[in-house]
């Protein structure tokens, strides 16, 4: 790893370390509805929305109504997005003359963006109209992120309130998240991106003659506005097919740095929001530490594995050097943009998979087997390091509850987290939460191995590498990540449908137990802490949760990994 690479990593860490607590405090105030100097700006907008949608912001919901609200909002979102794609050729603002999208692909894409996955079975610039991208996809990139954060706010309320029944109002949480957090940040960030060279226009294709004499169609479009929320809201779905490797989406090393920061900032900041909302900042620090340690480890592992490349190539003397030189960033450069090099590519790969963002600035398929396994495993940890906006913190809190339950008995008391006793009802919901993702991922990979189109059409590589591509696709969908390993043709009837189902289950079958858990917890009385209380803010607890996160994933996925990337790496 070069000095510049280190400098970039350290600068990123410092920037997050400084800004995350500040943003976290701001967001806590948003969810607690406290007074703010910004009320003068945002208050009227919110009231307008409430009046238009007939929302009574004072009326709170129990968990079941909250859940139904989330589901209803999401179903409507899917239908709307499906419809826009199906009729886009007849709708205005279609300068590139895109045809209507096929049913299976439309469904896949609609589900993908409503579930905050942003798995893209299509190529944006050659499939969707500008209108679809703007009013369909970009809108969902805002509200799906806001919905995830609303669910998180509800779970935190479940922990911080005692002896109550309601966990907030979904519509209020949704509106406040969008108006006060996502839109302002995305607006500012979009302008910054434009400054770095990301395009934002209404053009269709621009025909140019290349030096070689050929003609080339250069796409245009409202990209910066989408790029911005794509990162901020851990969505990951780009305007262009090659995602953040595209020069219009990620033109320079500086834009690359800012975009990585944009992926990470809200998920990390939410740890501090959590600490503030439960009135114990140390709890937030502990959660942050778990997220940070796993993210940093995954980042360093990916970076070093990619910087190291395949040393056997050097040994063979086939003329491909993996060492750093004046003309080469060194390492494994296949599938990577030279303007980022292996360090920034590895850092992006780890960050995008730890956050359920899913954007890519390099092709993970071309990583070394071990280097590609790290992003894969990072998703399999359940997207908790730091995870997608809102849902990442949910996952981590649930794993913290699991850790408390397993190890908490060892202090001789009924396990409790933040003073809430963890008993049968909680454990049942935690077990369901933990079970759903591996179940859907493993079952669909298993079925896919029998589907003819998978081996005939979808998988572009044979053997263990092809198997890894299949594992990666369903892991990405099941964890609502949306990054693609590449090397797989996903636009088939089976893959589109199976992945859509996986995304839906991976999103809503986790949200339902999460909100149910919030509903159970909010009614519980709080046990005051004492010397006999299992401490959940200490380094030991951080180590414990990390251990549980790793062991739960390892025990579930070790066999499948052994047959994919592990055997491939060992075979080098």
């Amino acid at each position, binding site marked *: 790893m070069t000095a510049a690479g280190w400098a970039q990593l350290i600068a990123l860490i410092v920037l997050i370390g400084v800004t995350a607590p500040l943003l976290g405090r701001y967001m806590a105030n948003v969810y607690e509805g406290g007074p703010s100097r910004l009320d003068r700006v945002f208050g009227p907008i919110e009231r307008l929305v409430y009046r238009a949608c007939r929302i009574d912001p004072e009326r709170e919901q129990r968990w079941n109504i909250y859940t139904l609200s989330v589901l209803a909002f999401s179903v409507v979102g899917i239908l709307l997005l499906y419809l826009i794609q199906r009729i886009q050729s007849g709708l205005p603002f279609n300068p590139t003359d895109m045809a209507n999208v096929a049913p299976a692909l439309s469904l896949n894409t609609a589900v993908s963006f409503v579930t905050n996955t942003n798995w893209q079975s299509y190529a944006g610039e050659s499939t969707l109209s500008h209108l679809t991208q703007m009013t369909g996809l970009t809108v969902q990139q805002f509200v799906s992120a806001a919905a995830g954060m609303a669910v998180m706010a509800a779970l935190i309320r479940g922990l911080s309130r005692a002896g109550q029944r309601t966990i907030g109002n979904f519509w209020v949480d949704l509106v406040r998240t969008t108006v006060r957090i996502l839109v302002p940040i995305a607006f500012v960030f979009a302008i910054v991106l434009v400054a770095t060279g990301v395009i934002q226009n209404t053009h269709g294709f621009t025909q140019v003659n290349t030096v070689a004499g050929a003609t080339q169609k250069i796409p245009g479009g409202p990209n910066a506005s989408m790029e911005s929320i794509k990162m901020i809201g851990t969505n990951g779905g780009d305007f262009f097919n090659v995602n953040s490797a595209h020069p219009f989406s990620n033109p320079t090393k500086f834009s690359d740095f800012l975009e990585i920061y944009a992926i990470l900032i809200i998920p990390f900041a939410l740890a501090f929001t959590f600490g503030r909302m439960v009135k114990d900042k140390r709890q937030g620090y502990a959660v942050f530490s778990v997220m940070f340690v796993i993210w940093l480890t995954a980042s360093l592992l990916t970076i070093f594995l990619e910087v190291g490349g395949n040393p056997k190539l050097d040994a063979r003397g086939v003329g491909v050097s993996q060492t750093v030189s004046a003309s080469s960033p060194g390492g494994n450069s296949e599938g990577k943009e030279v303007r980022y090099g292996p360090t920034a590519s590895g850092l992006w790969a780890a960050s995008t998979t730890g956050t359920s963002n899913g954007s890519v600035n390099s092709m993970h398929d071309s990583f070394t087997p071990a280097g590609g396994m790290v992003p894969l495993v990072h998703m399999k940890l359940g997207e908790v390091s730091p995870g997608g906006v809102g849902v990442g913190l949910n996952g981590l809190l649930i794993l913290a509850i699991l850790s408390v339950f397993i190890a908490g008995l060892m*202090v*001789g*008391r*009924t396990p409790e987290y933040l*003073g809430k006793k963890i008993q049968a009802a909680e454990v049942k919901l935690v077990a369901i939460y933990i079970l759903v993702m591996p179940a859907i991922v493993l079952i669909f990979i298993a079925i896919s191995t029998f589907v003819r189109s998978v081996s005939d059409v979808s998988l572009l590589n044979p053997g263990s590498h092809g198997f890894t591509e299949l594992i990666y696709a369903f892991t990405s969908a099941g964890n609502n990540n949306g990054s693609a390993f590449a090397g797989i043709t996903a636009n088939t009837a089976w893959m589109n449908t199976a992945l859509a189902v996986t995304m839906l289950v991976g999103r809503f079958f986790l949200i339902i137990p999460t909100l149910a858990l919030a509903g159970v917890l909010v009614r519980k009385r709080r046990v005051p802490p004492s*010397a006999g209380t299992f401490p959940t803010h200490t380094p030991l607890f951080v180590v414990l949760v990390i251990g549980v996160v790793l062991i739960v994933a390892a*025990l579930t996925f070790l066999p499948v990994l*052994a*047959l994919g990337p592990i055997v491939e790496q060992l075979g080098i």
Partner: protein
Amino acid sequence: MARESRLVEPQILRRAIGDSFIKLNPRTLMRNPVMFVVGVGSVLTTILFFKDFGSSSTNENVFVGLVALFLWFTVLFANFAEAVAEGRGKAQADTLRKTRSETVARRRRPDGSVEEVPSTALDVGDECVVTAGEVIPSDGEVVEGIASVDESAITGESAPVIRESGGDRSAVTGGTRVLSDEIVVRITARAGETFLDRMIALVEGSERKKTPNEIALNILLAGLTIIFLLATVTLQPFAMFSNAEQTVVILVALLVCLIPTTIGALLSAIGIAGMDRLVRRNVLAMSGRAVEAAGDCATLLLDKTGTITFGNREADAFIPAKGVSEQEFADAAQLSSLADETPEGRSIVVFAKERYGLRERELVGAELVPFTAQTRMSGVDMDGRSVRKGAADAVRRWVEEQGGAVPPELGDTVDSIAAQGGTPLVVAEAGAAEGSPHPPRALGVVYLKDIVKPGIADRFADLRRMGIRTVMITGDNPRTAAFIAKEAGVDDYLAEATPEDKMELIKSEQRGGRLVAMTGDGTNDAPALAQADVAVAMNTGTQAAKEAGNMVDLESDPTKLIDIVEIGKQLLITRGSLTTFSIANDVAKYFAIIPAMFAGFASLSVLDRLNVMQLQTPRSAILSAVIFNALIIVMLIPLALRGVKFIPTSASHLLRRNLLIYGAGGVIAPFIGIKLIDILISALGVS
């Protein structure tokens, strides 16, 4: 109930081995999802063994047979663990049943005549006459008379106890024997619902319900089992996709090794053993829920008398009034107390003897003046001299009535003793006739002190380290209470406590989310006992108290509340430690089985590099993991029965310690164990 120092008796072991097979009944197994899965695996592999007997290669057939054998052992070992844990209780229940053998009761008719009926025919409200040598036919309350009763059948305590009508010592238990005198007992329990019946059911575990934490843990274990079931079932398609199809035996072996069999096998044994530990301390818990709650307790309400102090005030100093010599005062104090049979009075005599060398004397011609609620004094009149001892104001009034005066310094002494938590007793004298050598005057003050039990302050410090608050309950005035509270090291006290105060304290602690434990024996304790989360009634207490509590201490030792809390904690710690150990074990098993599964396939043989234990052959690797998985259950049975060592310390310290032993240890131990078994298998040439 005789106490045993040995963990398990040989005859209990023999019986448990038999029970292990009886428990193979699928309906019994079904209650434990983890072991049920193992049971299904055992049947499946056994069928495979017989199906391929002779047709497949001998080596493969032996391998399948051995896997099947050890899967059966896994189930049997789990059953054995539970059976051993139940064994002690069953043996005790048998002993108790002998006590319950039918007796003849002498029922008193309303007209006063007595008829003989079998004890089972008795109804609630019947009155029976029981005389010396007879067995009390059923639970009841003494309504007439007083008797000494041998309760050893229930409590194991050989010293007889006094039972009398009225008051807090009126409850008698069916099955105990009257040793002297005659009492009339009003029956309070229907046949089959007596204390003895409940006790038999409890120690036998026939009414055992899963406790809340046990239920929660079972859900988690079921969840893990489902995850591993999925991981194993889906592995076959993955293996086929990689052209490395697996045999059913190997998949079953993998599944059984992964699911949490260790804790699944020992979970109920841990719970039963926890209850049994209480029974061995002569505490009967009416539900396992109460035992768990004991571990959760945040506040202990402890009666001062009997728990914190010995219950009797003892003389600690003689402080003579001005112009009275110490020896003179000691003499008068002893004289005033010679006839006083109260513990306080006796302690004054003992103190006078030990400190001033005054021997007891015969009171010739003395007239004893007993203590009454009106005079609040006692003493003697002898040789024309009256000596009185009592509360300061009462004695002052007496001296003044006799025409004397009490010097103000004495009042100061009295106040300072009271301020230190002691009880001042003033001794005064007066001559009966005018001009007697004994003018009416106060002689001095006896400093009576509540003696705090030695070592109790250390135990409270332990409790504080565990995060448990102790509150002393006393009828004393706040000053006295504060002083003793400080000396004993309790965190708080409730002085001049009425039953209502006590109730309010419990409720306010519970409102704050804290679980409360207390002991009680009197009828007026019953509402508080019913409200508390852990309520230990003394066996000597009233029927009402016993019914309100959720535990009964047969030895009636209120200090035991602290032991009960520790046993509750130990139960939870044992459960948590073995769960952690069980899950941590899986890491090593993967490293044994995954390489072994794929070693035989050329394209995947590189996975053999994961064989970090260097196990000899794939079959030996899988077999070693299965054998380890079975043997670890047996090896942990003693730990499950005895409980993990409990150290009274803070949660963070406990966590660090147990996480290191059972977490880290759980990861490392199977690597060593599996390797050793593999060496042994290879040496024997089994596969």
